[in-house]
């Protein structure tokens, strides 16, 4: 067997290994119900949940509760199935949080509370303003 063949086999093996591990480590987008089910089955892997922050008629976001020392906060998020869930985040409120139109929380259930390790925010208007006010 030639050395080049051995190298070829090793390269292919490593590439397949990478794909398999990536598939195994890949997270998934789920709803709160699915996440809860996973946690109840003892699966504590971090997953992604996409949702929005509930708003009152006048556009104020409801359900945000900073801790007394401002070092963490919790909020209510509504997932794509309209299920409301309180989410806890052990960091101060991220900038832009209240303006985000869509929120992705990455984390898992701890009993009845969803604990987020990371929050991603989607602000479509971040780089493109949508309307212009006559005042400016």
């Amino acid at each position: 067997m030639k050395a080049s063949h051995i190298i070829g086999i090793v390269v292919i093996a490593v590439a397949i290994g990478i794909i398999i591990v990536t598939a195994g480590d890949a997270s998934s987008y789920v709803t709160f119900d699915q996440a809860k089910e996973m946690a109840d089955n003892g699966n504590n892997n971090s997953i992604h949940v996409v949702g929005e922050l509930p708003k009152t008629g006048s556009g104020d976001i409801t359900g945000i509760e900073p801790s007394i020392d401002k070092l963490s906060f919790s909020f209510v998020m509504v997932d794509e199935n309209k299920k409301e869930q309180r989410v806890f985040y052990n960091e101060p409120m991220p900038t832009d949080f209240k303006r985000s139109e869509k929120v992705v929380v990455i984390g898992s259930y701890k009993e009845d509370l969803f604990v987020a390790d990371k929050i991603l925010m989607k602000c479509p208007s971040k780089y493109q303003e949508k309307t212009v006010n006559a005042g400016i």
Partner: protein
Amino acid sequence: MIHSFIGDLGHLFVIITLVTAVFAAFCYFIASKKDGLQANPWKINGRFFFTLHAIAVTGIVFCLFYIIYNHYFEYHYAWSHSSRQLPTHYMISCFWEGQEGSFLLWIFWHALLGIIIILTNKFWESSVMTVFSLVQIFLASMILGIVIPGLDIKLGSSPFILLRDAIDAPIFSSQPDFVPEDGTGLNPLLQNYWMVIHPPTLFLGFALCTVPFAYCIGGLWKKRYRDWIRPALPWALVGGAILGLGILMGGYWAYETLNFGGYWNWDPVENAVYVPWLFLVAAIHTMITFRSSETALKASIILVITTFILILYSTFLTRSGVLGESSVHSFTDLGLSGQLLIYLLFFTLGAIILSAVRWNELPTTEKEASTYSREFWIFIGAVVLCLMGFQVLIPTSIPVYNKILELFGVVSNLAPPADQVGFYTKFQLWFSVLVALLSGTGQFFWWKKMDKEALKNSLTIPVVITLILTMVIILIKDVAEPSYIVLLLASVYTVVANGKIFIDVIRKSPGLSGGAITHIGVGLMLIGIMFSSGYSKVVSLNTTGMLISKESSNEFNSENLLLFVNEPKEMAGYQLKYKGERVESTSPSVFINKNDIEKTATDYLVTAKKDIEDDGEVVFSKGDTIKISAENTYYAIEYTDQSGNSFDLYPRAQVNESMGGLLASPDIKRGLSKDLYTHVSSIRSPNEKVEWSDLEEFKVSPGNNFFVNDYVSHIDRVERLDHIEGIDLAADDVAVKVSITVEGEDKEYLAQPIFLIKDGMVGRIADEINDLGIKFTALNIHPDENAFTIGANTRQKDWVVLKAMEKPFINVLWGGTLLLIIGFGVAINRRYKEFKKMREKGME
């Protein structure tokens, strides 16, 4: 008034750019099919059109900059990316904040490189420039902004679109000629000098990757399979150096400006540049092998083509909107996805088909590379680099798989790994070990003919030194993690081994030392990355023992520290004290206490309440008007270490309404062995309503003490005012300013409420001491008793939540980067000289 001329001119230039690129591509295509003298007229035509093309591109750049510079906010691009207050050097950044501008930048670099190739090349001009012109056709179409009639397909997105055409706002139906007074401004995160130079560097790197690709296609096309590598190699090296520099500038910007606490986050947008760079570096290695031993030609062709395709793929990823939820900083979708896909597929299929057709004609070497040959080890190195890139590419493309599956009607909910840093590190660490070991050992093979005995002799000394050095570092820095020990060992080895080579080479022929220098840089970078990331330590731990939240379990420990103004707290061997808010004056640049200034009607102008000193010198006198950068607030934090030395850090927060609140940037105390990295993670929001306590009244005479919020206060002085800014005082009106001194923890504060009788009515102007959270109002004057009624409201004292991290040896990373770039520079110089020699012989 709408300045429509400049926009129309710009648009005309865009169209000229596209048309001349088509003509240039056509002429050069014909020219490269013909031989000798017959080709000349076509070549001259090609040159003419490409020069015209370059002039038109410069014209577009000029028009767009003219619009931004003159604040023509009737144009969408100027309105959405600039504002009147923006300093000129940041106007340059506005230029590429938007997608259209960044395409323009890329086009500009291509045009410039094309001109350089026309001027420096003799033989390769026609075929290389055909490829270049083709690339330019696709790029120019991205900024065309023309709707094809009948088909209703929009081609490209023009930077010269008017605001009223871009945005559907009610104002435009009543006032079509409405021009906004001011733009919405540049994203404050981008208002940083690194952002002025990082994107152009990166795009120059992108553009440079096209050059070796164009030579490669030219070589395959003209069947000069061996010859293309010589002129392509110096370009590939320049590309590697510039792209690498661009990536690391981005990392440095992230470290200095963003507050996620690091320089690299494995964000898809970062990955999309990192992967092509790894392949380009691999390509450079196989090309060098080919130059010295005529092997690895096929590998070079595959790698050069792959690099270019990966650049296109990363463009597609970041600009088509496909990354959507998985990236924080990809561009918004401008509806260019289809166009980008065609661009990607055209060059991918074109290159693959051309190589497939020519594959069997490619010269090959029959002899098997021995395991003691340098070719073998360099090839292994290139393979490792490719696998390293492949590993990053697979998970980064997850959103693409979802999209493809969607096309087939399958709903896929695959998401990128939740812990990105952990996931990528577990692979990249071991690949890095391999890279380090190979770049240490490979160099010995490069410089000497090796067999078992010679290898043993050359390696003994470096290995011994490596072991000793690594032991010392492990003991001093307390490295315990086995994988880190292996990485450290490999990195130190590559530094030592290449150091030995460097010493040998520099004496004989310094021009050839590029490889050794670059590899020393790589070793140092790995050591810096390992320590600064692996041993980055949050030092602002909450040690109060207080429960952060009832809801959270015990495994959480808060990594932030709440500091009230002037109340010291202990943190990791430091005593921390928050000293209050500061603003920065623009010239000279000084941090000014917010208590020492008074606001005026204009945001960015304030007046000094008292003399403002910096380092003991009076910079501004009382009453001076000072220009400040209004959107920035700095939080003065005093650090005192155990031996009593103290220094101040000023982490920053930007209040920017249009960005939706507060953006924090760190301040860094730099040290040789470690950086102390501090940023605010939460502040008292200036836009939220402050909850003041109920008014408390004090009846006091000047000189008598009273207590507000536990602070000793007394009236110092009372003076009658002749005029107050903004109020007309008549002869009968009375205005009295009461100066109240409050003794804070370590300094005295001054508040000056005003009591006013105007037209027989009482008016009161309150004054606030920001740090202490006290607002004084002069409620009444009792001349008969020589006393005043003073009202005081209090609020929660000023506070800030802080996060601090230690980043050991991060400067080793930056130092290593510098060496890497220097090494590339030496190698470029050498390869360019080779190319020049050949050109003088009429070979290129």
